[in-house]
């Protein structure tokens, strides 16, 4: 049964406000709703599409666009993308407005500075989680560690490190 446009829009709009921490945090809930609850796609399709979205550059939230495309073609893609982005963007807009209004208050700077540990802790954790998920072959953790070191200690473009990682991946496959 193909879902109505309104179904697609409202489903993804609801997911939008659950995505605290971005799409990686969202994936279990998205799976529960799209596969188990609505039955819009099967398990294998979901995981392949999710991997595809991970492989592309940019925010992983676009896995929603990919799912939308599988559910309802180009129209479904547009609705899913609008649905997943709009509510969160409106909230961020509102919060940015509060920040501006409160700019003079003495406590707003330290309050924001208090969020720095969350930013850095979660950034580091996502590196570990991604690294674990990417450990498809024995050398992979070494690529991850080498890349971390390069980014930390060097100011050269990270593109070098990504390319080098890709070449090592190719080499392992060719020899493998």
């Amino acid at each position: 049964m193909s879902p109505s446009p309104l179904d697609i829009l409202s489903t993804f709009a609801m997911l939008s406000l659950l995505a605290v921490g971005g799409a990686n945090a969202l994936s279990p809930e998205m799976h529960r709703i799209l596969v188990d609850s609505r039955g819009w796609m099967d398990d294998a399709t979901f995981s392949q599409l999710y991997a595809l979205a991970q492989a592309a550059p940019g925010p992983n939230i676009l896995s929603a666009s990919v799912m939308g495309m599988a559910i309802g073609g180009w129209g479904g893609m547009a609705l899913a993308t609008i649905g997943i982005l709009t509510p969160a963007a409106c909230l961020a807009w509102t919060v940015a407005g509060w920040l501006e209004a409160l700019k003079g208050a003495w406590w707003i700077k330290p309050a924001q500075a208090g969020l720095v540990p969350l930013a850095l802790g979660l950034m580091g954790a996502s590196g570990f989680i991604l690294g674990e998920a990417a450990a498809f072959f024995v050398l992979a953790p070494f690529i991850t560690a080498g890349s971390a070191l390069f980014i930390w200690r060097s100011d050269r473009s990270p593109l070098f490190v990504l390319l080098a990682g890709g070449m090592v991946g190719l080499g392992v496959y060719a020899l493998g």
Partner: protein
Amino acid sequence: MSETRTPTPGELFWGFLQIGGLAFGGAVAWARQVLVDGRGWMTEREYAELLGLSQVLPGPNIGNFAVMYGRRCHGLMGSLAAVGGFFLLPLCVVLGLVVVWQEFGQNPWIGAFMKGVAAAAAGMALGAALKSGFRLKPPPEQILAILVIAALAAFWRVPLPWIILIFAPICVGMSLRRAFVARAGV
């Protein structure tokens, strides 16, 4: 400290286009690279503070970041320019990939290359966190908080909403207390 420059809406669009187009495996590390190191639009501290807020709010981290940073620079125009630039390329690439995937299935060589890229991209997030952390020199209680948060999220896989509900008030409280003490001391 504040040798930063406010970009025009056009520059915002191009800057975030670059962030989105380059951001394999997540945009957070690339955003830091472009905004702090590359263009000098933000200081290390401004970046980390706005990023912290973006992570506490629901939605894509750098998407929220683009909305708020764009608004700070140029109001609605700035937000639209930053967000539009950020999502444009990744959306095109990902949809292209879906079309290719539906056509050709999986090529093992491309798969092998992408696996290597994924491993290196993971290191990028780690390296960016280390770089920011060492430059910002947070006070000891914040260093402890960073380590605890990272361990809870990475090793115990505590769901993110819980981490944020618990640690946002604690960290903000600690920071406010420090500022309050400093203020009372003057």
